[in-house]
């Protein structure tokens, strides 16, 4: 896959889709926060 057909490529649409696909149901109200913290680790780590 590449940028054009990867379902999670875009922000915010792809990012939100990924959050819905991987977060437990009860975390969805905090999806932006939870995903942001994960992104920091992947970005800086």
């Amino acid at each position, binding site marked *: *896959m*590449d*940028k054009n057909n*990867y379902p*999670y*490529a*875009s*922000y*915010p649409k*792809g*990012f939100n889709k*990924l959050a819905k*696909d*991987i*977060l437990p149901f009860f975390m969805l109200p905090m999806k*932006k*926060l939870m995903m*942001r*913290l*994960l*992104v920091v*680790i*992947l*970005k*800086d*780590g």
Partner: protein
Amino acid sequence: MEGKELQAYRVGLFRDAARFIKNERIPYFANVVTWKVFDAGHTLDEAMTDFDVMKECVVHFLDNYPCDGLMDTGIRNQFNVTETFGSQGYYYYDKECVGIKDHATCTVDTLMDYIADEDRYVWEKVLPEKYGDEWYQKSKETWKKTFKAYMDYTMFIVKMGSLTGKTYGIPSLAPNNPMSGTISFAVEEMVANLLGIKQMSLAMRRNPEKLDEFIKAWDDKKIQPVIEKIKNGKGPNYKYCFDASVIMLSHNIMSPSQFERFYWPHLEELLKAYEEKDMNIRIFTEGSILRFADYFKDFKKGTLTFHIENDDPYEFREKLPNIAIMGGMTTAMMANATPDECVKYAEQLCNDLGKEGGFILSEGKMVSYRNDAKAENVKAVAEFMRDYRH
């Protein structure tokens, strides 16, 4: 004393020292990071990939070396997350060391794109560039496992905080809620992540106006809200040894005029906000800060505590008598001297610098490598500080 009572007692020690209030005891803050892994009989690759091993290393350290504060409770190792994700990152480790490759997520021309919409910029530009074609191959399953690894890491942080607090009475150094972020100045983020040392050095000379623009935008977005919160808040929070803990590193690559232009105005405003509220802030001044001593000399005595690295504590006290010192013990001494010599020097530091408060014993450098210290020296100093009274 144990648990919360011991934590509160230790917070009192740190606060008194920061405020130049005499206390029967001077606290010892163990600036010990990965050295504890070796001392526990493990190697870094074992500890970095196994939370139980890392916990064992932290427990071994706290069982053997009495301290009032600890730099790292084993949580600086999110390798489980990046390794589950399955792609090479900037951090690397082997049996003996952990390192980070120099990197830059922006250029001086894209800094404003970054700050305009950080989340989008990171998601659509930074991460795909970092991971290349692998980024677009990460399946939902990989992402699920990575998120689980991240939750495991988060739970480990919580567990270690609870263990070190409840069982060993170690207080938290300063508020460090990852949900609200730590305080970081634009210049520090540029050196550490956005531009790297080389690009930052060049940009300060070739593109100062672009840096000005970015630093102002960063300040408006990240620092001003903190200042507002301080001004509207209730002042000191005695759950913590300090009300804030900040790292200063980038000043080491700045000339005086660059420090005056890019760093000082924003740093000064934040420090003054803490000063007005009688709060205590600890600044880990990596490298040397004494070139810029004049900037700090008028702050109210007791507001600032500098954790010094390369600066001599006696020279520091002479130039900045209004600022409490955290530090004093060198890794050179901890690694090469005898226990008696280390204890004698610790006692000298306490007597010369701490009799009226204003001093917290610590190692200047983060004790990281196997040969950074001898176990018998760490033990001798820790036990001396535990028992020493004026």
